């Protein structure tokens, strides 16, 4: 019988065969898997002693599998290299993201922040139960025994944990297992290179959802409306019928496209290209990028929709008007596609019980369940999600419309529902059918006093809201303000007196979404280029100027100052010149502080990125090498898009179509990246995204230092030549 003790922990446990599984019940209590049906575990110990971590966050390269495995390995006193991992199934009650509420999802750089206690607790409980089982067997006190590398020993005896699993599963689940003291950690903070997903990805064995093949499956490609809001009137598939392998075509119930079914991927693409569709564009977007920009500018000329920080706007304006120095600048940011390396895809398969199973690099398994429940009229419990590796996501695999899941599920619903259906996007589909980083226009005025202190900052942003109209609106929108539109401006580490932050919601021309670092992807650029301009106008060194505006008595200010000083020191900030030009930026996002110094040279009057030095404070560094890799990648992401990334529209249609005209960062574009981690005892914070925001402004500030040119319109390529 299950009894609930104080603090709601389950005290009784039942063995589940020879596998000891540990997890949390929906109320957050530890319990045995076999005990409650809905419970699925965070770790398993098998009869042969193998320990498997159950990873509840999508592994898309950001290192979640390695990170969560490290926590289990630590508490079980084993090497990270000896643990296996599995992806968790869909079960929001068990695997919810504690920071998001009752949804199972990966995003906002939360994987480690939300799992740090949870996975250690599960590991510690397993350790105590295994030891208790041995103690009982040998009739000794548990305190006299120790667990190390899968062996429990003491009292002159030793036994493998595999042999104890059955007994351990019968032990009481400790109400509050004792976590190891940080001074005893050997895996957390270990600089080893031991990614758990490395070998599979090196030998071609890793299963991405693109690699799914099920017997009898149909492959679907979709001809989508080229303009947001277009609707299918009719289609003609007579030419498609000449394609060997073409099965049939059908209009999606929402009218947003025509699904083309075929025997294999190539036939699906060929048949889709051969299809002609007549569209109703009467309600479709018709603007081009220039018109959209003009609309944004008109919004900035007018009254803002929101006074975000309830500032006395007139007083701030008056302060700036009366300042010794006044700077004023406009910044433009284009639409950007995520274009993860793996084009979007997913597979759905009918189950005997009337439910379905998705095979998906699922960023939000809860979304799969909701979509299937709605479109197929089944219950969420009938929806299984097999999570596979994602070939990058950067935010793309989850959005307010669940776009590709809806498409796939509709395409499946239109069949007789007896065969699996696999949806595959081409790169062209990806570039033209994005849920883009929104366009944004910022206008800023800054007032400085004689001593080079900022005394007023007026900031108006016009950009479409990501969250309004999405299922996440309630969580992310306060008093009409979508926090993702303005995050990183007034809530940064700087002490800026007299700030007036204003926001105007722009009309969407495309679907828009979070994109690695979300609002910070543009706000950090504006903040850090303005800080540089202000430093220059004051005749103060850019690092010193920033330090002057960081309150070292505040947590925010001191952590930002620390990374700033460290990055400057490691980059040799004091030794500029000799053809090296350095630019700096510091930013806080996802509770992580990162400063970056970009070093460039100017061969043949072009810009070459020679080196980037970063300093990071992300709390406890669970896997220092994964953190370094994430920052290296995030810097490449930030700089690459700032250099060349731009999606534009012509009469409502996306102009770019594939990598040749949405040119990604390539190997020769960027030199060495040197990442330094600040030691910390604070809980871990985000790391997948925070490296991105400071990257582009550090580059821009280096270019300004080298050439005097201040780039305020992205991408940089429209006004700057890069070394090739």
């Amino acid at each position, binding site marked *: 019988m299950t009894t609930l003790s104080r603090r709601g922990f389950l005290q009784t446990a039942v063995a589940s065969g020879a596998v000891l599984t540990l997890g949390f019940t929906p109320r957050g209590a530890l319990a045995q898997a076999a005990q409650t049906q809905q419970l699925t575990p965070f770790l398993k110990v098998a009869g042969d002693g193998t320990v498997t971590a159950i990873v509840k966050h999508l592994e*898309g390269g950001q290192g979640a599998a390695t990170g969560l495995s490290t926590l289990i390995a630590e508490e079980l006193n084993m090497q990270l290299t000896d643990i296996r991992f599995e992806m968790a199934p869909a079960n929001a009650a068990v695997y919810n993201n504690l920071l998001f509420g009752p949804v199972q999802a990966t995003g906002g750089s939360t994987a480690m922040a939300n799992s740090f206690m949870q996975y250690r607790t599960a590991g510690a409980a397993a350790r105590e139960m295994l030891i208790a089982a041995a103690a009982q067997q040998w009739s000794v006190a548990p305190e006299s025994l120790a667990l190390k590398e899968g062996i429990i020993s003491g009292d002159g005896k030793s036994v493998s944990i595999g042999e104890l699993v059955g007994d351990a599963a019968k032990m009481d689940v400790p109400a509050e297992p004792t976590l190891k003291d940080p001074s005893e950690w050997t895996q957390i903070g270990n600089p080893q290179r031991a990614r758990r997903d490395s070998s599979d990805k090196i030998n071609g064995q890793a299963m991405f959802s693109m690699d799914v093949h099920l017997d009898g499956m149909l492959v679907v490609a979709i001809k989508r409306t080229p303009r947001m809001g277009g609707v299918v009137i009719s289609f003609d598939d007579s030419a498609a019928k000449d394609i060997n392998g073409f099965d049939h075509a059908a209009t999606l119930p929402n009218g947003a496209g025509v699904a083309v079914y075929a025997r294999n991927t*190539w036939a699906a693409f060929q048949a889709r290209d051969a299809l002609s569709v007549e569209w109703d564009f009467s309600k479709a977007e018709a603007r081009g990028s220039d018109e959209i920009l003009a609309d944004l500018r008109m919004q900035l000329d007018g009254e803002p929709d929101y006074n975000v920080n309830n500032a006395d706007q007139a007083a701030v304006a008056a302060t700036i008007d009366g300042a010794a120095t006044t700077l004023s600048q406009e910044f433009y940011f284009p639409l950007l596609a995520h274009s993860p390396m793996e084009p979007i895809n997913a597979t759905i398969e009918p189950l005997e019980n009337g439910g379905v199973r998705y095979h998906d690099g699922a960023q939000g398994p809860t979304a799969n369940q909701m979509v299937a429940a709605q479109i197929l009229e089944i219950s969420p419990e009938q929806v299984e999600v097999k999570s596979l590796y994602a070939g990058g996501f950067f935010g793309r695999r989850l959005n307010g419309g669940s776009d590709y899941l809806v498409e796939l599920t509709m395409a499946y619903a239109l069949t007789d529902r007896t065969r699996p259906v696999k949806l595959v996007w081409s790169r062209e589909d990806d570039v033209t059918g994005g849920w883009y980083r929104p366009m944004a226009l910022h206008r800023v005025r800054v007032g400085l006093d004689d001593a080079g202190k900022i005394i007023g900052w007026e900031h108006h942003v016009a950009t479409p809201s990501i969250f309004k109209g999405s299922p996440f609106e309630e969580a992310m929108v306060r008093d009409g303000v979508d926090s993702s539109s303005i995050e990183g401006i007034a809530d940064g580490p700087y002490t800026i007196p007299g700030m007036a932050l204003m926001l105007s919601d722009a009309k969407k021309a495309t679907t828009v979404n979070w994109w690695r670092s979300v609002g910070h992807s543009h706000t950090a650029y504006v903040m850090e280029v303005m800080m540089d301009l202000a430093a220059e106008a004051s005749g103060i060194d850019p690092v010193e100027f920033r330090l002057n505006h960081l309150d070292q008595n505040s947590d925010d200010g001191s952590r930002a100052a620390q990374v700033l000083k460290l990055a400057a020191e490691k980059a040799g900030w004091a030794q500029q010149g000799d053809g090296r030009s350095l630019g700096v930026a510091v930013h806080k996002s996802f509770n992580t502080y990162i400063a970056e110094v970009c070093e460039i040279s100017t061969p043949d009057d072009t810009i070459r990125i020679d080196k980037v030095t970063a300093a990071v404070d992300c709390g406890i560094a669970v896997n220092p090498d994964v953190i370094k890799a994430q920052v290296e990648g995030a810097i490449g992401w930030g700089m690459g898009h700032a250099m060349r990334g731009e999606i534009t529209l012509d009469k409502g249609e996306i102009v770019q179509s594939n990598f040749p005209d949405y040119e990604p*960062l390539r190997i020769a574009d960027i030199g060495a990246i040197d990442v330094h981690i600040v030691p910390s005892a604070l809980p871990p914070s985000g790391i997948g995204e925070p490296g991105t925001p400071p990257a582009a402004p550090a580059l821009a500030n280096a270019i300004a230092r080298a050439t005097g040119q201040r780039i305020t319109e992205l991408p940089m390529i429209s006004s700057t030549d890069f070394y090739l």
Partner: protein
Amino acid sequence: MDYTVKINGATRQVAAEPGTPLLWVIRDELRLTGTKFGCGVASCGACTVHLDGEPVRSCQTYIEDIEDAEITTIEAAADDPVGAAVQQAWGELDVVQCGYCQSGQIMSAIGLLRETPKPDSTQINDYMSGNVCRCATYQRIRAAVQRASEILEG
């Protein structure tokens, strides 16, 4: 049409339409999924395989043009000493992030080291510039190519 394909030391029969890119024959018909689809237009290198030891973009190589050539994919890369060294170096340096581009990166790196056993970073940049990594693992790729070169030197 039926074609005979020599791949990873085996001879296989496949049915495919003329004009089908080798990429889709390898993935959908032969079910070797280590070779990846990234762009379909020879712009990303994710689909790189070897044809008689030379890296090619399988998305732009057509089934009817293969004829007698020996195809090698990532699944058999370790059978060759250069391939094994590259894979070892990739592992030592934990190059991968999402991993989706890495089969192609590795197949290109093998081609580079066969041609230039001790490449400097400019030579690496030049040779590898057709391989996109959206996770931007580039600096580790550079280091791993050099590490593989060291391993091969013994």
